[in-house]
């Protein structure tokens, strides 16, 4: 028998006595944790489950027999045979004294109704404190989302640990000395001026209300709490709404498997959009004679200038009539539908079923086309599965994390916290991205390679791995096909030859290749920087090959993880909102699959794959498509070469838009159907980790706004389909029959557990968090290597357009901004469009940070404020695409990846000029008004 390691010894159960009774502590449990499990309460303030115990407040002291002084039970682990007393006179006197001293400093008027200090004081029956209060700092109300009232601060440092150790945003510190010591933000800045990203973790950690949601939210008692999921990014954080009078007061992080209570600024402060005055509440029909051309805009405050209100009956009849007329006169192929990755999977499923069965074609797509279509194409080709192999939190088990073409601190903020935690635990982070995101600060190796040279970099890494004999021969032999072709192909890509192309020294390329290949577990995560190129599929093929040749897959802490963007892009794709596949990625041109769905749906289905997002816009221009039904998408903002896309929208005979706001796409609509926002309905969404999670209705919808499922069904009925779904559960049950991967998930289980990971093929199956353990779901069970060569971007910089435009998102705003720009806190923090430019490039055009600059491509021009950012590489400009008044997509190039059909959002040629005319309207109201108020 081998001797136990120190860790194993520490993990052994420990028997000791608690208040005279024998108890057993598990593993590394502290006294307070054991006591809690046995139902013994010990007062505590600086201790919070999930945070590192700090032992600074001493409210949790207990007596240990034979010891001279009392022990802090939050950081003391019991020893075998120890006799601990929590409730004798000596311990209680000490606990009460600590609480009384802290209580004496509390302000007369509290900032929260739920102060843990007050709760403990009440439990221990403390009266009015005997001591005089100390001098108290003044309030800091400089932040739009968070109020800082340090008069309530007890310096327990829970906020410091939440900020620095949990979220690793590194803003809050503990400064000064003695009686002057206090919590500070950065260099003792006001919170609003600090580098705070407003994740709100400190607010959630604060026990006394010193940090609270702004505007007195803590002093209102919610009348109900509803558990749900965040509607923003693909991380899928679980949360709890606090609701009063059908309004969301505040949001708390909930202990879900992907977030464990953490949230980001959007998830915590981005919800009042649902109460915005511009919500659509009645069906609208375009007035006869209202203009409809590409440059037409309108004021979302006054929809009735160009539309008239209608009853649901009239609007739905008009929709069905319009679509039917086109189908009868121009054929089935003249219709199409855009679903949305922001809706539920049930909505996506029903929407694609409506298009395939009701319209009679496969022209149904959604924004997956614009984000990970190329990754999906490469993954389907390589491993026959488009989902991630390992979940984000698996980075905690990885030895090496290779992150490329992603900026998770902005786009997947909570996923980024796991990466930062993993690095703090000793994992190596190799971060490759032309734009230096905040994670570079944590990276062991940061590679700022030249934009558009992903294939060069990755092939050079593979070249090193082949040449230095670091391939996993056994894995290649038993689990893959086509290695020989790949090996021959990477032969031509030596690091020395690729170094000048990608701008990374050959030695660095070799070093990271070795680190990746040699580790026990290397996990690859990637984002849109990989996928949104005309060679996006090739980029992803290289990542898959890199992973396969080293056998870094099929175990915890390794594998492939394309970070999905939208909250439900995985679910919407799984549900078949894709033109070439039915639900669960069954190809429409596969006769067996088609027969199966024809039987299930009782209809004849089109065997020809439909058109993709950008192809549909082209088909409209050519006159082949005349009617479009859009549910929750905003192609007027999100499509590349937006002018071209808007022209197409204006040209349609019949455009039906189902929305919650009058979006830029609605400007071209013939009929607008008011739908429900995420907190107003039930349904499931699937996050980037393949977790199917249940969103629960928390609010009633405003006015006559209707659930999306109801609207789809009403249109279907008017197109002659006999549908009778009673709600999301009904649709979900049909989906289970259509999709083997979720067949084992019952609605009841979702209601109980809120989250089930798929594949979950049989009821009771726990769900598989790691897949491809011993085989791939391909016909041969093996993964396919696909070599890739360098293909340059479609539009390279030249003398006239010397800069590269990179588009993307920013932390505070979601996608086209329809929701977040109407969320007051988010709008107040980031109210207007900015372009990020390297300070030296700004110098070169004679502009200063804050000046107005213009950015022009061959397709359009926008003017916006310049922001200096030395993380943006020289010769490039970054513009987030959520601002209508300076829409980045007026500039982008619609050139497509030939396989994934994804446009090249990450690269086109532009020129920069100082000056320009700003578009006057720049907000939907809310945050800016608040910002103006606070300035005065």
């Amino acid at each position, binding site marked *: 028998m081998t001797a136990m390691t120190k860790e194993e010894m520490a993990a052994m159960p420990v028997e000791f006595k608690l208040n005279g009774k024998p108890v057993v502590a598990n593993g590394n449990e502290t006294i307070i944790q054991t006591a809690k499990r046995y139902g013994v309460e010990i007062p505590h303030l600086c201790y919070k489950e999930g945070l590192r115990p700090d032992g600074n407040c001493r409210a949790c002291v207990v007596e240990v027999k034979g010891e001279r002084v009392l022990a802090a039970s939050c950081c003391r682990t019991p020893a075998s045979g120890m006799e601990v007393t929590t409730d004798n006179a000596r311990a209680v006197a000490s606990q009460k004294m600590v609480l009384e001293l802290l209580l004496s400093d509390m302000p007369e008027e509290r900032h929260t109704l739920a102060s843990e200090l007050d709760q403990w004081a009440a439990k221990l029956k403390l009266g009015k404190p005997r001591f005089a209060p100390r001098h108290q700092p003044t309030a800091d109300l400089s932040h739009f989302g968070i109020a800082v009232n340090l008069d309530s601060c007890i310096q327990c440092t829970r906020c410091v640990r939440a900020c620095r150790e949990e979220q690793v945003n590194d803003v809050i510190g503990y400064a000064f000395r003695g009686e002057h010591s206090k919590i500070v933000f950065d260099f003792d800045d006001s919170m609003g001026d600090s580098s705070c990203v407003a994740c709100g973790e400190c607010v959630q950690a604060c026990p006394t209300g010193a940090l609270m949601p702004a505007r007195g939210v803590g002093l209102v008692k919610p009348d109900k709490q509803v558990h749900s999921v965040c509607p923003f990014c693909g991380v899928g954080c679980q949360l709890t709404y606090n609701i009063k009078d059908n309004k969301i007061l505040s949001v708390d992080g909930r202990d879900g498997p992907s977030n464990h209570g953490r949230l980001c600024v959007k998830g915590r402060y981005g919800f009042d959009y649902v109460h915005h005055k511009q919500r659509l509440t009645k069906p609208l029909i375009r007035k006869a004679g209202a203009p409809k051309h590409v440059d037409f805009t309108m004021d979302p405050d006054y929809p009735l200038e160009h539309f008239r209100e209608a009853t649901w009956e009239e609007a739905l009849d008009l929709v069905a009539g319009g679509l039917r007329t086109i189908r009868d006169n121009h054929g089935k192929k003249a219709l199409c539908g855009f679903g949305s990755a922001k809706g539920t999977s049930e909505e996506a499923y029903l929407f694609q079923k409506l298009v395939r069965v009701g319209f009679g074609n496969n022209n149904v797509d959604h924004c997956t086309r614009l984000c990970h279509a190329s990754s999906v194409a490469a993954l389907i080709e390589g491993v026959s599965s488009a989902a991630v192999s390992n979940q984000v939190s698996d980075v905690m088990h990885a030895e090496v994390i290779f992150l490329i073409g992603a900026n998770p601190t902005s786009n997947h903020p909570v996923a980024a916290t796991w990466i930062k935690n993993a690095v703090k635990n000793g994992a190596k982070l190799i971060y490759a991205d032309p734009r230096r995101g905040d994670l570079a600060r944590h990276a062991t190796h940061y590679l700022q390679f030249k934009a558009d040279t992903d294939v060069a970099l990755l092939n050079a890494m593979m070249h090193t791995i082949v040449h230095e004999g670091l391939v996993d021969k056994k894995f290649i032999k038993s689990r893959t096909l086509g290695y020989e072709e790949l090996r021959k192909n990477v032969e031509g890509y030596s690091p020395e030859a690729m170094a000048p192309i990608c701008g990374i020294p050959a030695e660095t390329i070799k070093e990271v290749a070795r680190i990746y290949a040699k580790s026990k577990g290397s996990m690859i995560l990637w984002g849109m920087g990989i996928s949104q190129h005309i060679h996006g599929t090739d980029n992803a093929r290289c990542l898959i090959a890199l992973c396969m040749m080293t056998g870094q897959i099929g175990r915890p802490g390794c594998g492939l993880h394309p970070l999905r963007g939208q909250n439900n892009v995985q679910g919407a794709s799984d549900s078949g909102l894709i033109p070439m596949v039915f639900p669960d990625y069954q190809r429409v041109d596969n006769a067996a699959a088609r027969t199966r769905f024809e039987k299930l749906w009782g209809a004849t289905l089109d065997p020809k794959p439909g058109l993709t997002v950008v192809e549909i816009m082209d088909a409209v221009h050519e006159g082949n498509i005349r009617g479009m039904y859009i549910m929750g998408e905003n192609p007027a903002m999100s499509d590349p070469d937006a002018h071209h896309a808007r022209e197409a929208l204006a040209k349609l005979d019949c455009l039906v838009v189902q929305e919650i706001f009058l979006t830029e796409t609605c400007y071209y609509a013939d009929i607008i159907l008011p739908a429900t926002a995420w907190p107003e309905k039930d349904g499931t969404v699937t996050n980037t980790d393949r977790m199917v999670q249940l969103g629960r209705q928390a609010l009633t919808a405003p006015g006559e706004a209707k659930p999306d499922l109801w609207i789809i069904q009403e249109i279907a009925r008017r197109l002659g389909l006999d549908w009778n779904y009673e709600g999301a559960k009904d649709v979900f049950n049909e989906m289970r029959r259509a999709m083997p991967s979720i067949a084992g998930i019952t609605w009841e289980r979702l209601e109980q557990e809120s989250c089930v990971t798929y594949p979950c093929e049989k009821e009771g199956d726990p769900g598989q968090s790691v897949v491809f353990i011993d085989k791939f779901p391909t016909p041969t069970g093996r993964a396919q290597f696909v070599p890739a060569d360098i293909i340059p971007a479609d539009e390279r910089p030249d003398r006239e357009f010397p800069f590269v435009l990179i588009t993307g998102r920013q932390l505070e705003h979601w996608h086209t901004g329809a929701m977040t720009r109407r969320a007051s806190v988010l709008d107040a923090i980031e109210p207007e469009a*900015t372009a990020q430019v390297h300070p030296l490039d700004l110098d070169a055009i004679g502009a200063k940070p804050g000046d107005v600059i213009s950015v022009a491509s061959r397709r359009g021009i926008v003017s916006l404020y310049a922001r200096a950012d030395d993380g943006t590489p020289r010769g490039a400009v970054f513009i987030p695409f959520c601002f209508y008044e300076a829409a980045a997509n007026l500039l982008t190039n619609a050139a497509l990846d030939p396989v994934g059909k994804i446009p090249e959002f990450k690269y086109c040629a532009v020129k920069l000029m100082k000056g320009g005319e700003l578009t006057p309207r720049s907000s939907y109201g809310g945050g800016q008004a608040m910002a103006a108020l606070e300035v005065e």
Partner: protein
Amino acid sequence: MKKPGNGSTPGKKGGARKAKSPINGSPRGAGLRLDPAVARWLAGAGAAFPSSQSSMIPMLQSAQAALGYLPRDAMQAIARHLLVPPALVEGVASFYAQFRFNAPGRHRVTVCSGTACYVRGSGKLMDDIKADLKIVPGGTTSDGAVSLESVSCFGACALAPVVVVDDKVLRQQTSASMKKVIQDISAGPSKGKARGTRSTSAVRGARK
């Protein structure tokens, strides 16, 4: 609240707006333009420090020796050089009495408040100097001439009450004698090169 024109979005269309400073594009002041003096220090002495947290105090001392105090830019540069949170640099620097965050005056007046000096009237002496200079210990006069400090003991108790002006120890001072000393140094030339002209109200921690 950022002032318009100073990084914040210029113009006042639709009322003053507080945009997140366009300079602050990415956290940690990416795109920050350092004060030239700080940049010179960073390129010279500063660059010699290894990028590890244990360099923090020596680096703060080096910056203060070169610059006379710790301007914000220097603290920011140190945080970036050591790859540590700005708040951690703040925490360490503000803990130690040796670090100052305001530009020092041209002359430094240090009054002893140790036991012997106190018994011999340094309390009143300090009060009178404060009233005379219209500042509190830790502060600098508005003309940048004099900084006032208090210290616990000089180890020259036989000379109590002791005041040290620049590098000169003055014995058995009175309010009247100090008034004259201060008049002289305020009017006279600098003892050396002036180190900036910023002044503050000298409240602890106030330095913006």
